[in-house]
C-alpha cells in the first residue's frame, strides 16, 4: 500500500516535470518571434540631432505631449506620399501638444534635406545614422509609425502608410488633455 502510493507520487512528479518542461519550451518558442515592443509598452528613449540645426531632440523631453515617431527613407515611395498629410495635420495639432519626429534611416543627410526642403516640411527631422534607433524600435517595413501617449507609453504601432483620416484619428488618441 505504502509502496504503491509512493510510486504514484513519483510517477506523477516525473510526468509533471516533463510535461511542465514541454509547455515551457512551447511558450518560449511561441514568444521567440514576437516583438518585445507592443502597444502599451514604454517607448524606448532616444536622442538624435535635428537636421535643421536646432539642437537635438530627446523623446523623454517630450513627456506630456503626444508624439508620432515616423520611420521613413527617401527611397521609400509610400513614406514620401504620407509626408504631406503629416505636415497638414501638424499645422493643426502642433499647438494642441502633438509632436512629430520623422526619423530617416537614409545614409546621406543630403537626400533627406533635399526632399524635406522640397516639400517645405516643418516638423523635426532627424537622421538615424547608425540605425540604432531603428534597431531598438524593431523596424522591419518602411514606413512604420509609433504613436506615443503623453505618459510615454505606446498607443499604437502602424506598419505601412497612413491616410489623412487615419492619421487624424490616431492623433486624437494621443492628444494630451487640455
Amino acid at each position, binding site marked *: *500500500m505504502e*509502496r*504503491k502510493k509512493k*510510486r*504514484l507520487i513519483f*510517477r*506523477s512528479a*516525473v*510526468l509533471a516535470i*516533463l*510535461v511542465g*518542461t*514541454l509547455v515551457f*519550451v*512551447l511558450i*518560449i*518558442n*511561441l514568444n*521567440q518571434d514576437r516583438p518585445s515592443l507592443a502597444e502599451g509598452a514604454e517607448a*524606448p*528613449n*532616444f*536622442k*538624435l540631432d535635428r537636421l535643421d540645426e536646432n539642437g537635438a531632440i*530627446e523623446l523623454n523631453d517630450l513627456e506630456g505631449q503626444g508624439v508620432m515617431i515616423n520611420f521613413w*527613407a*527617401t*527611397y521609400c*515611395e509610400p513614406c514620401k506620399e504620407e509626408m504631406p498629410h503629416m505636415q497638414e495635420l501638424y499645422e493643426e495639432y502642433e499647438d494642441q501638444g502633438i509632436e512629430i519626429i520623422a526619423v530617416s*534611416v*537614409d*545614409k*546621406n*543627410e*543630403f*537626400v533627406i534635406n*533635399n526632399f524635406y526642403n522640397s516639400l517645405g516640411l516643418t516638423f523635426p527631422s*532627424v537622421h*538615424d545614422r*547608425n*540605425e*540604432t*534607433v531603428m*534597431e*531598438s524600435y524593431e523596424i522591419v517595413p518602411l514606413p512604420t509609425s509609433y504613436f506615443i501617449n503623453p505618459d510615454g507609453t505606446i498607443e499604437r504601432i502602424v506598419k505601412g502608410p497612413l491616410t489623412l483620416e487615419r492619421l487624424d484619428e490616431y492623433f486624437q488618441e494621443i492628444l494630451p488633455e487640455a
Partner: protein
Amino acid sequence: MSNKTVKCECGHVNHEGTVLCEACGKPISGNQHIDGNDQNDVLEMRYEGSARRSKTYKRTIVDKTWGFFSSVKVGVWLIVITLIASSLGTIYPQEQFKNSPLPSSQFYEEEYGLTGKIFYQLGFHNMYDSWWYIVLVALIGISIIIASIDRFVPLRRALKNQSVKRNEIFVKRQRLVSENNTLNDEDLTSLKENLKKKRYKVSEEDGHIMAEKNRFSRWGPYVNHIGLIIILLAAIFRMFDLMHTEEYVWVREGETRVLPNTNQEYYIENTEFIYEEYDSNEEEQFRVALENVENPVPKNFQTNAIIYRSTEDTITGQLPDMEEVTRGQIRLNQPLTFDGFALYQAGTQLESEYRTIGFDLENDEETLGSFEFDTDEAPYSFELEDGLEVEVDNYFPELEFTDNGPSSFSKFPRNPGIIFSIENPETTNVERFFYLQEDVISLSDDNELNLSVSDIDRRSASGISITRDYTLPIFGLGAAIFMIGVVQGLYWYHRRIWIHPTESSYHIGVHTNKNWFGMKKELEEITKDTNVQSFHDQQELK
C-alpha cells in the same frame, strides 16, 4: 487492497508480473506469457525476468500515461514519425533560407509548383520551429526518460540481488548448457582458476558456483540515454538569447556598424575587404586544375575588422565613446572571437558600391579644376580653384527612373546618379550635368563647360554573422556521454556461468547478453583440461 504477489517454491515472494523468480530464477508459472516464454524454450533473460511495473499496473491515468511512454514500441514509432517529418522538411528550403524577396505564400508555389504549394500549406516551410515538431521531439524525450526509469530500476534490483543458488530449471534452460557432468574437485578448482584468469567474479554457496563479469555493460543503454537527454536540454538552452544568438550585419569598407543583439554595446569597423582568386601563373600546382574551369576560383574572402566596445551608457541614437576590444582578420571558417562572440565571414557584395567618383572640369582651352564626390559625405557643393563653385542639385545613390522621374531604389551607392550645376565664369550661365553609369551627360545643348569622370573607387560590402553559443559544450558533453554509453554496451559483454550440483552430477548453464560466438570460445578456454562436456547451443538446435 494489497499488492498482488507471487510466491516461488524457493520461498521468495516476487512482485506481480515477475517472469523469473528474483531469487532462484525459476520461471513463474502463468507469467511467462509476458515475454512469450514457452515451457521448453530457452529462458527469456531480458531485464532478468523482473517485473516491469508499467506492464502490470494500469489503474490510474498516471499509471496509464506512464505505461504508454514506457513502451519501446511507442518510442520507436515516435522516432520513426519524427524521422519522416524531419526528412520531409528538407525537401525544399526552410522559410529563413528561401533567399527570395517573394513572400512564402508565393515563393514555394512559383519555385516548385504543386508540391511546393503543398509543402507550404502543410506548414513544412517552418517545420523545425513548429509546435508540433517540438512536441514530437519532446515526446521522444519523455519516452526515453520514462522507459529508462522503468527498466533501469528493476534491472538494477535484479542484478544486485542475484543469488548464487539457482533453480535447476533456470540453469538447464539457459541457451548454452552442458548437462550431467561428472566433475572431481580438481576439475572444479581448475574451472574456478580459469574463470578468475578470465576476470570473472566467482562466488560460491553450498557447492553452487556463479561466475560473472562485465555487469557494467548492462548500464550502457541508460548512460546512452542520459547523453541524449543532455543533448535535448542543450537544445532547450539554445532557445535563450543568453545562451545562443545568431545575427547578421552588412558592413561596408570603411564603415563602423553596431553589432546587432549586443544591446548596442559592440561595434565593428570594416577596414578592408580582401578577395583573392587562385592564379595559375603564381601557383604552378593548380595550373592543370584551373585549365578546366571557366570561372575564376575564389581563394579567400577576408574582412579586416576592428571591434569596439562602448565605454559609457548613452541614449540610443548618440554615438558613445568607444575603446578597441580587438582587431583581426575574419576569413571563411576562421572567425574573430571576443567576449563570447564569434564573427564569421558569411557574405560578400564584391565591389558593389561606389566609394568616390572623381571629376575633371574644363572648358575649351584649359582645365578649370577637379573634385571628388564621396558617396558617404554627399556634400552640397564643391569649391574649386579660382572660386569656381559646383553645386550638387540632386543625388540618387541607386538610380532608377520611375514615372516621377529619377529616384533612388535604395540608400546604397550601387549605381549613383548625381546632378550638378556649375556657373560658367565666362558666360555666367548655369550649366547642368547629369552623372550616371560612369559617364556625364550635359542637360542642355549649349553647355560650354565639359565635365568628365576621371577616376572611380569602388568598395565591397562584407556580410558578417555574429554568433554567441554557450550551448556547444553542453551538446559536446551529451554526445560524449552518448558515445560512452554506446561503447560500454557494445564492446563489453555481461557474461554469467552457473555451475549447479545435483546429487550425482553437475549442470552448467551459461548466459551472455550478446556475442555468443565469443562466449563459446571463452568457454573452450575455461573448460580446457577438465571433464566438462562440450556445451550445446539450445537455440541453434531448433
